[in-house]
């Protein structure tokens, strides 16, 4: 039986903010992008939820996973690279809200 999956809410080009969820356990959202605004570069498709898989759960529903692009200058105060430098990270949909 195919795994239940959530349909993607966002598409390439959408502005999104990474939520500051109070998830105590295992998750895949690095601290340094929380609360930051970025742009969806692409949706990779849906993947089983790691926050469930890590504790023996089924991972259902599979969650859309997005490659999100952030401006380095907005992530780091005093970033020393160039204006156009970017950081891209994969973020699960429940960690994102429209911005």
């Amino acid at each position: 039986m195919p795994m239940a999956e959530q349909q993607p809410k966002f598409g390439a080009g959408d502005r999104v903010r990474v939520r500051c969820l109070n998830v105590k356990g295992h998750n895949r959202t690095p601290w340094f992008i929380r609360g930051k605004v970025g742009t969806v570069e692409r949706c990779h498709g849906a993947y089983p939820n790691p926050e469930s898989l890590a504790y023996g759960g089924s991972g259902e529903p599979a969650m859309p996973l997005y490659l999100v692009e952030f401006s380095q200058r907005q992530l780091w105060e005093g970033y020393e690279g160039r204006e156009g430098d970017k950081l891209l990270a994969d973020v699960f949909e429940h960690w994102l809200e429209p911005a």
Partner: protein
Amino acid sequence: MPGVHDRGGWPTDDPIDQEEHPVMDWEVRMSALLGALRGKGLMRTDEMRRGIESIDPSRYESIGYYARWAESVESILAEKGIFTREEIDGKMGELSGGAG
């Protein structure tokens, strides 16, 4: 506060140590053992990651990559009741005893 594993942007001025060490036999075994456990569905990637993230922070920072794997596999398999830590202690003593 980020967990000890969540390293992005942590303050450090240390240069990257580019020296490469040959992989050791036990690290190769560790890696293969993990592959076998994964293949049987006994050790998922995110369970493995959770086990690594649960290592005491100062220990996490002082041990190597494959040692973290060993810690995680042991704790997750013990949690699942596949073996007990005492069984591993016992076997370790037995193997060391055998080797003199």
